Every structure is written in C-alpha cells, then in structure tokens.
C-alpha cells in the first residue's frame, strides 16, 4: 500500500544537502551527454549505479520497471531510425546506429535513475529549499514539489479504483490493445474525478493556512553544507570537467555514424 516516493532510509546519501543532490543530478546529466560511444558511457553508468546502491533507491526503480522497459525498447528502435552507419548488422540496422541507440538509451536510463535517486532521498520540503537557495522563487519550487506530491496520491487512488472495478468483474489482463485501452475507461474517469477533488481540497487547505499571505516567508527547515557535500561537489567538478575535455578532444565518438 506504501506509495510515497521518498524512501526514509537515512543513508549517508539522504543526509547530503539538497543543493548537492540537485547539482550532482545536473552534473551527471551534462556528463552523460558528452559521449556517443556506449563504452565511454560505462564510467558514468558505474557512477550512477554506485549512487543508486549507496542511497538504496532500487526499490523505486523496481517499481517503475515497466516504464523503464518500455522506454528502453522504444528508445533503441527510435534512435536506430534517426541515425545511420556504414556496417550492416541485420535487416535495416547498422552496427554504428545500434551502438548509438544503445548509448542514447543508457543516457535516458541514467538520467531517469538520477532523478529517482534525487526524489527517493530528498524530502519535498528539502527539495523546495534546495531550489530556493539556488535562486528559484518559492512558488516555482513549491509547484515542482507539488507535482511530485501528486504522484503517490494518484497512484494510491488508481489502486483503490482498480480494485473496485476488478471486484465488479473488470478484467484488465486479457484482450487486444484496443480492447484493453477501452477497459481502462472505468479506471480513468474515477481517477480523474477524485484527483480533481483532492487537488481542490489541497488548494483550499493551502490557502486556509496562509499560503502566499506575505511577500516574504520564513523557513523552519535549515540546510547546511557539510564537508562531505563539498568533497562530493569537488569530485563532481572533476568528473564534469574531464568529460567535457574528453569530448572536446574527440574521444567517445562512433566512427562512421551519421545522426540527424
């Protein structure tokens, strides 16, 4: 029944400052875009896996395994179409474009994983605070975190509703694609309606507690950069700098690849 995204495990990764986690997320994002060759992508992949392991976020990754699978398969196919190489592999695929597609898929998976690590280890309020301290206005930070907050609410109402409809004999497991999509209607209408209702109460509750009453507000939550944060940021800087330098120096490319 647990549907929260934040995993309250208290690992060293959880204790990092939200700003550090946000910067690490952006840093890995940049680093992952520097290489086209999947072999060169391996160090970044290792880095991401290490963070998943340390923060114990695999549970959330496991939860979205179907999404990840669908994304991977469609990404491999799509990037093959949007690039071409010189060495034929089989049918319409070439070795170079396949390499490139694998690389892009890895990039997507890494970025998603980093996002999952970020929200699995950072409380909503910390995330808002991190964003504000990095210069975003409060309302923007609040909007981002609210949309994240919506995910578990919608997930849990989807679960209740699918139970209610299955009790009435709705069978979501059989039939072809069109049939199945039609069968989702009994789920989507109630999910939509209950989400609107919840959002409405949420909005009322927010205003009733003075949201935006004053131009400035105080923050109860305090954040402090510790030594570990600075060390990690220094390492990240090295990693990003090295990635960019390697890219400029021409490493990590695929010979014979044309991409559009």
């Amino acid at each position, binding site marked *: 029944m647990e549907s929260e995204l934040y995993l309250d495990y208290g690992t060293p990764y959880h204790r990092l400052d939200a700003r550090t986690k946000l910067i690490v997320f952006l840093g890995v994002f940049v680093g992952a875009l520097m290489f086209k060759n999947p072999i060169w992508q391996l160090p970044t992949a290792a880095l991401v896996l290490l963070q998943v392991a340390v923060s114990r976020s695999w549970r959330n990754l496991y939860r979205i395994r179907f999404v990840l699978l669908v994304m991977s398969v469609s990404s491999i196919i799509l990037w093959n179409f949007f690039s071409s190489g010189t060495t034929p592999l089989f049918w319409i695929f070439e070795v170079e474009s396949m390499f490139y597609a694998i690389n892009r898929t890895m990039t997507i998976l890494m970025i998603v994983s980093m996002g999952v690590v970020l929200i699995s280890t950072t409380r909503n309020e910390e995330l808002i605070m991190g964003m504000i301290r990095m210069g975003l206005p409060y309302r923007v930070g609040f909007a981002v975190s609210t949309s994240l907050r919506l995910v578990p609410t919608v997930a849990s109402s989807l679960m209740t509703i699918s139970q209610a*409809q299955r009790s009435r*004999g709705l069978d979501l497991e059989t039939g072809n694609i069109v049939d199945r999509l039609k069968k989702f209607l009994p789920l989507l209408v109630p999910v939509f309606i209950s989400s609107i209702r919840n959002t409405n109460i949420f909005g009322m509750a927010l205003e009733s507690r003075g949201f935006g*009453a004053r131009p400035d507000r*105080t923050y109860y939550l305090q954040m402090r950069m510790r030594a570990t944060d600075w060390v990690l940021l220094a390492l990240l800087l090295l990693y990003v700098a090295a990635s960019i330098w390697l890219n400029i120096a021409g490493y990590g490319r695929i010979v014979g690849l044309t991409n559009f």
Partner: protein
Amino acid sequence: MTEPAIAIKGLTYRYRGTKKNAIEAIDLELEKGEFLVLMGPSEAGKSTLAACINGLIPHFHKGKLAGDVIVYGKNTREHTVSQMAEDVGLVFQDFEAQLFSTNVELEIAFGPENFAVPREEIAHRIDENLAYVGLSDFRNRPPSTLSGGQKQKLAIASVLALRPKVLVMDEPTTDLDPVSKMGIFEITDRLRRRSDLTLLVVEHETEEVLKANRIALLKDGQLVKVGPAREILQDIDLIESLGLMPLGIARFYRSLGFSDLPLTPDEAVAAYKEAGLTVVCAHHEALAAEEKRAAAAQAAKEPLIRCRDLEFTYPGGVTAIAGISLDVFPGDMVAIVGQNGSGKTTLAKQFNGLLLPTGGSITVNGKTTKEQGIFRLGQSVGYVFQNPDHQIFSETVFDEVSFGPRLRGLADDEVKARVAETLAAVGLEGTEAEDPFSMTKSGRQRVAVAAVLAVKPDVLILDEPTTGLDYHEQCSMMEMVKRLNKQGSTIIFITHHMWVVAEYARKVFVIKDGQLLLEGTPREVFAHEQELLEASLRPPHFIQFTNRLGYTMLRPEELIGCTEGGAG
C-alpha cells in the same frame, strides 16, 4: 454589547452553475469565546456556511454572494483567504487531502512560515501545539503513517499554530472510528474552554454536541432554529423532522412522559433511579434467548465463508490480518467493526478474492478463493467500495448498472430487466437515463450498490455504506440493505456507526490489530464495553445507559417494554 467575533448578515450564496441558493438569508452572530455547532441534513448548506467564514467563499469558490461576513472587524469580501488565515482556522473533513508535508513538524510549520514568523518562534509553536493535541511523540513521522484520528489531530494542530481567534471545523470526525472521534471531541472540549477562541463546528453526531453553547439548525440553506444546545436536543420532533438523529436516551424518557428530558447516560441513570423504575428481568431474558435461538439455527447451516487462521501480510511487510477464524452463514447480516486501520477492510477484501491470504485458509462456497479467482468470485461475492466515486464512470445510471451483467455476457433483454429490477431494489426506479455524477452522495451510493447487485451475488459486502450520509439517508440506506437481506442476500457491512450495528446487524465481528477480539450478537458484543474500548469502539449513549442498569438493550422500545414501576 461588545462586538461579536463573527457577524453574518443577510448571507446568501449560490454556486456558479447551479440554480438554487446553497444558503439563503443567514443572520447569525457568534460571541467571542462561544462554541456553536452547526447541524443539518445533507445539502443543507453547512459546509457552504463554514467556507464563508474564512473567505473560501467568495474567493476560492466562484458564485453569487450577497450579504456580509465580518470576523473580528474584517469583512471577508475585502480580505483573501490567506490573509484571513491568521484570524480564522479551518479544519476539513477529509484528513488525507488537507495534509501535504512530509513530516509532522513541517506540517505545523507551514502556516507560521507563510506569515514570516521567526524560526525560534515556529519551533516553540510546534512544541506547544503537538503537546496540545497529544502528538509530541510523532514529530518526525511522515503524516501518511499516522492513523486517521492522528491525522485529524495534526490538521487541528497545524491550524492552531497560526493562533487563530476563530476555529471552524467542517465535520472533523465523519470518517473516524468512535474512539478517534472522542479524541477529537476531547480536544474540542479543551478548545471551547479557551476564552480567546471562538469555535464553530459542523457535526452530524448528536451525542457529541452536548457541550456546545448553542446549536444552529440548518435546512435547505436556511436557519431553522438557533438555541441553547440542551433545549435543541430535547426538541426531538424538530430534530427528527430535519432528518437528524434524535438521542436514544431522550426518546426513551419522552415515551415515558418526562418533560425535562435527560440527555447523557449519567443523567439517564440518575433519572431512572429517581423515578423508581426497575427492569423486568424476564422480558430482557426473552429478548436475548430469542436471538440465541436464531444464532444457533444459523450456525447449524453450512457456512458460506469460512476462514481458518487467516493471515495476510502486505508485500511491504505490514501484517494486516494475524490469524482470524470465523464463519459467515447464508442469510446472515454481519457487521465488521474496529478502529481505523485495524484490518477490517483487508479482511473483507479476502472474501471476494481481491487479496489472497498469505497464511491459513479461506473458502467461499466450499472452494478456496485462490482457486476461484476474483472474476468468478465476483459473481458470488459483490463488494461495494466505501467511496462511490471510486466506482462510477458512466454517463448514465443504466450504463453504470449494466456494466457488470454485460461483462458477464448477459443478453440485452436480460440486462435491461436486471437493471430495472436492481434499481427498484435500491429505490431508484426509473432513473436509468440520469447522470450519476449529478446525483447526491446517497444517490451515487445507491447506484454503486445497484451496480454490484445487478450480477446477483449471494453475498454483498458494503464498506462503510453510511459514512458521509445524514441520519435520514443512513436509515433509508440500511432499510434497503435489510430488505435485500430479507430477500435472501447475505450481507456483510463494515461500519463506524455503532447505532447502525445495534439497529441492523444480527452478528458482529470486532477486529483489533488484525485479530478477532469479540464476536456475537449486537447485544452480547455491546455488553462488553471495556473490551470494545480497547478496540477504540464505544456503544451508543443509550446502550451505555442500559448497560449501567445491568442489562444491554439496543433500542428505547426494548427498555420501555422491560421497564416497570414509577410514576411514568
């Protein structure tokens, strides 16, 4: 005269897109420090009036407003909801949707933060308010892990942290079990003693509003009567005419011809003795013996549902059912009761195969739920979920009710006949073409029941069928369920409403921490007040009163039949 805390003058409001005024020409003044309870049937405009006090109307809900609401000199027209928040706190019925922080401390901090209260002061207010509602041990917990009652307490604390002068609570206890309710009322009781706080509470439960200074009765958007709490509660005819629940104790004494009606169990016991009344033991024994005979006849049948050492642990590792053995016999009318989160709903979900046991066994009609599967089991065990809005998705009542029969491959003619038949059974004949979303809550509840009934299940499970309905609607819902039971359906219902159990159940299972604490007829179960209290349950006042006389009686009529002597 001093200036009132809240002055409502000629207030009329109509929601956008509706034809009728939700409230009409309301004039009401609340003195500083007063505790006023707002009562009335569904759709009377109680929540609308509550939303007017802090400016949600007209700022959040759009519509047509006439008249004024002035709170401590501030007109709600001229101040936004956020600006009013410092003066008026509002607690909602839905305890899930009004909490949004990831831990208890931050939930409370949110309000003061918005008003730029310094950090040290916020820390102080967190301590103060958590202690006030008794949640000090939970300060680092995520609100989602709290029980329903604790969530509602947290909502109150988070509003009190703004130090409002007025606190409005809109049906704060509707979704709570009896003891969680008591917890909220205990807080309300402390709040009402504070002279710096004016309290306005919307409430259904007549037993709980005794401590109010005044009660305002609302119907069809209009104030029917405002008066001292005792005076209003003694006016049984008025209360009944509004579709509210009259107090059992008051009803009993009125039938005996008393003029100054006792209202609480204490008063009732004292009045009983004072009038020299006695209970005729033989009559009471006859009542109990009759029930015993009926129960024994049931138990001789082959059980429809049989659980043996049933266990269920959620994938996350939470054990919701820890060894339950029970039988449900054909034709039973069973109530499952227990605290929020005690495992009632998880248990009921085992009955139709939505959840499969992780230990022990459960059979329905002699076969395990696992071998039957949810699709086939759904044919014999119907399950009506608590919230009809989790179920309804069609544009017409006909489509909604015919969904099940169609899925099960019935012919068109037969589907039509079934729909007509089930709609008649739930008292909605002829509504086939209506849009279920435009119906009232009780109407939607009935559509949901009809939709499940339409496949003609042997067993009908109802998860809190009376929650969110007013007394009149609760009665007619349960009368309908009773009728279905008489026609042969086996009924299992989960409920927090103890009077519903007393009035309608023939067998009760009390669940506590995933185990069966008590089972028996309502009379047997309600005699065990102490054990019930452990399960966060409490019999209605009237039954508490008869327990103190040494006999358990479920209805005033029973006690009248057993009472002898005195002047009355």
